[in-house]
């Protein structure tokens, strides 16, 4: 399915979505945090879309905001979409988990929690995956400083 057709279907679900194809090979859609789970579920379950394969889940620090980027593909139709979600709360960021939609998200969300400190609601086992449980701070954030171990230019 072409990007325009996908956009047409997704647009009808909510009026708070922002679409963009600029500077990216995929169709990007920015979703408000409170609608994320619902939109993701629809993306997977709508028969014409069937985005059943979450191939990349990236945490990102946009400076003011923290966010997560979901790269989705349909193994049947081979079309793609990129879902983005942001949260402005850097102290206690919370985003809904999508691990019940795509099971692989359970692991990837643990990684994002470990490095960005984003807490995922309804996650079955959110814990530090790579770092030790008593580690302070979230290393992939842009404002993280570790004077001993980081080479700062």
């Amino acid at each position, binding site marked *: 399915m072409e990007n325009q057709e996908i956009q047409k279907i997704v647009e009808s679900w909510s009026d708070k979505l922002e679409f963009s194809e600029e*500077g990216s090979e995929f169709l990007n859609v920015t979703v408000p945090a409170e609608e994320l789970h619902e939109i993701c579920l629809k993306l997977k379950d709508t028969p014409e879309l069937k985005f059943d394969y979450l191939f990349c889940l990236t945490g*990102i620090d946009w400076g003011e905001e923290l966010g997560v980027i979901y790269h989705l593909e349909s193994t049947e139709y081979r079309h793609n979409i990129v879902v983005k979600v942001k949260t402005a709360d850097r102290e206690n960021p919370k985003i809904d988990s999508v691990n019940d939609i795509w099971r*692989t998200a359970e*692991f990837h969300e643990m990684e994002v929690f470990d490095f960005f400190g984003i807490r995922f609601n309804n996650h079955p086992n959110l814990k530090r995956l790579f*770092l*030790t449980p008593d580690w302070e701070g979230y290393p992939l954030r842009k404002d993280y400083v570790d004077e001993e171990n980081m080479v700062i230019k």
Partner: protein
Amino acid sequence: MEQLTNNKIKTEEYFINMGPQHPAAHGVLRLLLTIDGEIIKNVDPDLGYIHRSIEKMCERDSYQQIVHLTDRMDYLSSHINNGAVCLAVEKALELEVTDRVKVIRTIFDELTRLASHLLWWGVMGMDLGALTTYFYAFRDREMINDIFEETCGARLTMNYYVPGGLMFDLHPNFVNRVKKFLVDIKEHLPEYDRLLTGNVIFQKRTKGIGLLSKEDAISYGVTGPVARGSGVHCDVRKTHPYHAYDRVDFEEALFTEGDTFARYKVRIKEMWESISIVEQLIDNIPEGDIKVPTKAVIKLPKGEFYQRVETARGELGVYINSTGTKNPYRLKFRSPGFSNLSVLNHISKGGKIADLVAIMASFDFVIPDIDR
């Protein structure tokens, strides 16, 4: 005694550490097992023993330097990993490499896959108690490493691909040595089949073990030979061709049983396909430049770039978020090992510890690829 005769033996669940130093993990992977007797109730991986924070390092490095970090991830697919970053940078710069580069990269990728699968085959036999396979496989892998060494000067961390092309031209002996190697390997693979594939003990330990359904494989983001053993059409070389894969004729290895033995068969078949790809290209390497000139300091345009390649373990994705400077703002490696690991608990529950060893062998984990 009374307990035994009454058939009311009390059991209780307990935890046991498998790793971080365990011979079947081939690296520092710690699995926290919850077991009842010998039955596995839960597998909880604890990662990070060799985490080097490659993604953070990438944020301060130039794009040429990032290529060098990638073969520290999955060191058995180093050429392929290098290629992923090079392709992403070339895509962002809209740089078209020469045909010669594309063909040479394809040949190197397939030789890498062959070397990786050979090592896996030897190690899988070893994990299941057949030590001989290890020495046989390493004999052939050595030949590939020698060929690589002659051209790139390295045997493990290759760094042969650069954005825009290749670092050096092929060594004059390259074509002849590859042809000689192909003759040898085609003699050896059937011998290996006779040695291990038909072995009764090997079959009993792999058939029906670690069943993974097609739906679960997709949902857990499993890729590579593991997913293809469950019948998922996911070979990036077919679905999103890169290098010269669109001009060679090969078959995607697909089996539908979804057990450990199916994953074994996928890799054996892939070795034959790799041989066939190299054979198709080795006599037809086009003439041309080995590098399209790039600026000494590569700045990518503002935007997001994604490149996926098929390593020996599955789909490696490189996500680059660029703000137009000489470093990426954010770079993410979607490594095949990490996603494949996420399904381990699901398919080893209810099995025995010895089955877990067989399953892990069939997943072919490389721990630095999981940890990054």
